[in-house]
């Protein structure tokens, strides 16, 4: 479960990114976090992954209090979250298999576990048999599927997707979003950060709208409903 209570984040340069926001995301929920650029969406992701700590207020992520967490415990929180980025962030000189293996090695997985888990996850995202290919040999949509596979490979309870369709055409965007919906149906909490109104409107999901560091809407429905 994710819970933010009266969270304020002011950066060292004086920017007020979040001005006392509160919301809660239950386990297994699918949530869109929407808002214009500079509204504070990225700061929320950074708070969830422990990249920044709140200036005040409480952030709870899967049982960890991010406001008072010890530095050595941050890797443990991150193992409960799979992060997907707009620019995929795949290592171009590693094969698809090695990109996924890197994430598993990082949490100390053994060779056998790596060899059995990767084909399973690739099948889950609809990319069977691409293990030996390099990211540059794949289309944008396929690369994002690899990135999703990497986020899933360590079986996290939460998936955070930061503008996952920002670099894709509408058809591929819909495919990716449908895939995330399927992953959510398998039990993972999914948080999708986006500003693509059309895409959000096609899914009848909870939408948290943020603007200027404050929550301006939080309800199930379309982008308009959120506003």
């Amino acid at each position, binding site marked *: 479960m994710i819970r933010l209570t009266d969270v304020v984040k002011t950066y060292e340069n004086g920017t007020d990114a979040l001005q006392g926001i509160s919301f809660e995301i239950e386990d297994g929920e699918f949530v869109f976090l929407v808002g214009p650029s500079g509204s504070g969406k990225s700061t929320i992701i950074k708070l969830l992954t422990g990249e920044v700590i709140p200036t005040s207020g409480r952030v709870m992520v899967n049982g960890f209090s991010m406001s008072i967490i010890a530095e050595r415990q941050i890797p443990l929180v*991150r*193992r409960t979250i799979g*992060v997907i980025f707009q620019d995929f*962030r795949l*290592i171009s000189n590693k094969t698809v298999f090695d990109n996924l293996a*890197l994430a598993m*090695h*990082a949490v100390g997985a*053994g060779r056998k576990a790596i060899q059995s888990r990767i084909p399973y996850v690739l099948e889950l995202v609809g990319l069977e048999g691409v293990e030996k290919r390099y990211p540059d040999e794949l289309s944008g949509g396929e690369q994002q599927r690899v990135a999703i596979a*990497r986020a899933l490979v360590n079986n996290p309870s939460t998936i955070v997707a930061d503008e996952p369709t920002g670099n894709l055409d509408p058809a591929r965007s819909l495919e990716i979003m449908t895939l995330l919906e399927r992953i959510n149906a398998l039990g993972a909490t999914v948080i999708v950060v986006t500003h693509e109104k059309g895409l959000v409107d096609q899914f009848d999901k909870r939408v948290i709208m943020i603007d200027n560091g404050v929550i301006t809407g939080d309800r199930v429905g379309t982008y308009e409903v959120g506003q």
Partner: protein
Amino acid sequence: MKHNFFYFIREGIGNMFSHGFMSFAAIGITVACLVIMGTFSLVAYNVNENLKDLQRENAVLAFVDENLSDEEAKALQTELEKLPNVADCTFVSREEAMDSYLEEYNEDDLYSDLDPQILRHRYVLHLKNLDDMSLTTDALKTVDGIVKIRADQDISTGFLTVRNIAGVISITLIAILLIVSVFIISNTIKLTTFDRREEIAIMKMVGATDGFIRWPFVYEGLLLGLTSAAFAFGLQWLLYRAIAEGIANSDTLQLLRIVPFEQIYVPVAIAFGVVGILVGVGGSLTAIRRFLRV
């Protein structure tokens, strides 16, 4: 954790070859540093060994006043033994001195008729520490009944000067070259970490600990350090043998005793290995510190 160990080693070797030229440069400079450091240390060591020989062989002669009776002359032994820095003290009568003199120049009949009475009783003293030779000779001069001292102070002073200069130079060089080596290896690894910054960021994002991220770079530094140490050791061996042969064949320097490399290769190898490891690991830890702040 066994699979992680092999993973780290594999990654470390991969890192080393991913920037072949920089790794080559780092190894080259570290080898140079180690050889320079080793050469000065070995010079200091050999000079010290020669000083010890000199200490063993170089005796101070204390001549006894000829007006003293034989008994009075022998009685001085206790007093001389009590002097600081005297390792041992042997009484040589004028007859014994004459015998040894004749033995030394036995081919020359000119001296055979000499009367031992023209010589003085004397004491042969070996010192504990040649550094304090002048203090000891000064103390000997104050002993009643000792009228003359003979000590080859120039030779021992020469050796001491060489040893002290080599010691100071080697310590200074060790300090400077260690810093240079750490800096070079650190920069080589910085290049690898910069090249792999995306990878590091991803590893951090999926929950890798700092230790896990650090290890491949530590192994890279370790491998660079150990490879440098191995090359430096081989080069030092060849250099040492060449210099030793040169000294043995030299007319002026052949009196110097050069310790055979076979007798000292173990401590030299250990020293090079330890310095290589310290420089390599030190360099890698310095390089990756800032990349872990993600």
